[in-house]
């Protein structure tokens, strides 16, 4: 087990991602952040918290998306569905999808399908905390990357969060 990011490093990375998002979306007026359930929402929670610090008083459009019903492996294993909460339209909005680890790209494929059921966004970008390079099974690339790593297929990347797991770090197992 190897630590990729420790707690301090993780919070610096989140701050940097927040600034990179703001560089491209200055006032966030037509921008929405969507965290992918179940574990992407911890990244998006923190990003939204940072964005609100940078732009006090400005509302941030923020939703949660569960992709269980859009998976391409329903017949192989059933996963527990989580709550989706998008109480605004994404029509003509610039959407930033947020997840913790980008691996095969299949989750993001499903997330884009799910997202389109909420309207036709002006654009869709992808923000991930960890990008596992050279492991994609679909042509999907992130726009904002916390950290790129090289890993074997057999390895696992796990992100731990204080509110969920007690500790805060990213490890390669």
């Amino acid at each position, binding site marked *: 087990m190897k630590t990729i990011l420790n707690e301090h490093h993780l919070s610096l990375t989140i701050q940097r991602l927040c600034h990179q998002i703001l560089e491209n979306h200055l006032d966030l007026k037509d921008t929405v952040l969507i965290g992918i359930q179940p574990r992407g929402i911890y990244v998006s929670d923190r990003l939204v918290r940072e964005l609100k610090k940078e732009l006090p008083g400005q509302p941030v459009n923020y939703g949660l998306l569960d992709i269980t019903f859009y998976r391409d492996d*329903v*017949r192989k294993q*059933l996963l*527990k569905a989580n709550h989706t*909460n998008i109480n605004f339209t994404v029509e003509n909005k610039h959407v930033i999808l947020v997840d913790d680890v980008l691996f095969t790209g299949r989750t993001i494929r499903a997330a884009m399908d799910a997202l389109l*059921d*909420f309207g036709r966004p002006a654009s869709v970008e992808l923000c991930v905390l960890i990008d596992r390079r050279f492991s994609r099974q679909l042509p999907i690339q992130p726009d904002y990357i916390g950290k790129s790593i090289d890993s074997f297929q057999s390895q696992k990347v796990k992100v731990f969060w204080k509110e969920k797991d007690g500790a805060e770090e990213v490890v390669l197992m």
Partner: protein
Amino acid sequence: MQLSSKHLLGIRQLTAQDIQLILDTASQFKEVLQRPIKKVPSLRDVTIVNLFYENSTRTRISFELAEKRLSADTVNFAVSGSSVSKGESLLDTVNNILSMKVDMVVMRHSATGAPHFLSKHIQASIINAGDGINEHPTQALLDAFSITEKLQSLRGKKIAIVGDIMHSRVALSNIYLLRKMEAEVMVVGPPTLIPKYLQEAFDIRVEYNLLKALQWCDVANVLRIQLERQNQVLFSSLREYNLAYGIKKSVLAQLKKEIVIMHPGPINRGVEIDSDVADSQQSVILQQVENGVAVRMAVLYLLAGQRES
């Protein structure tokens, strides 16, 4: 994470965990039904036949909508106009349909145990949409879902089931479910419509006085008087039944609390429930119908997901 059975024959065969899983999944599907596009691609590769040997409005439309909103392919079968009238047996009919590569069967039949019989002879998953006087599991699940929406949980809640307990498959499924989820159950109705050994068999209360039952309960689930199943006279007239057991404003006004009124439909207005009660704020009858689609989506999704395991 999966159900303990590949069929949904009745609540009797489910565990408390199964029931909780279905209710949890249903609440996610309820959110799907609020979206601009109320459809998910989960069952794109699944074909389902709706086999209704008995009349139905709500259940059939609800199942069909649930199937369509999961992107399944559906075939509808109605007995009238089919080869059943030429004398084809149930098993032959179903085997013929299944040889056209159908994965799941939703069936309603007037014979008690018909889906159980089929499940022993065919590979496809069977979902019981009502068999004779036995069970109507998806109705009990949607009733439970509607109660949890109103009262947060089932455990310890007091549910009175009012009316024709004897002929009602809704009553039996509800009793199984509520007892498995540790709710308290009371049945109330004329003695002629309450089976003799119910109390001992399920550890529930039996009451013959409507007012006392309503004073006890948090939720009253009012059953339809099944005119088509009464071959003998079990009460003297509909008017007398209405006077003794009909849910009326005047009876509810005597209670010191507001209870939730449920009814599985179709309603005989002015018999088991008066119109002003059925259409009041207290009644969740139309929410039950709305929840029915989400609950059936959950059942179909969970059963389809384990076809190959």
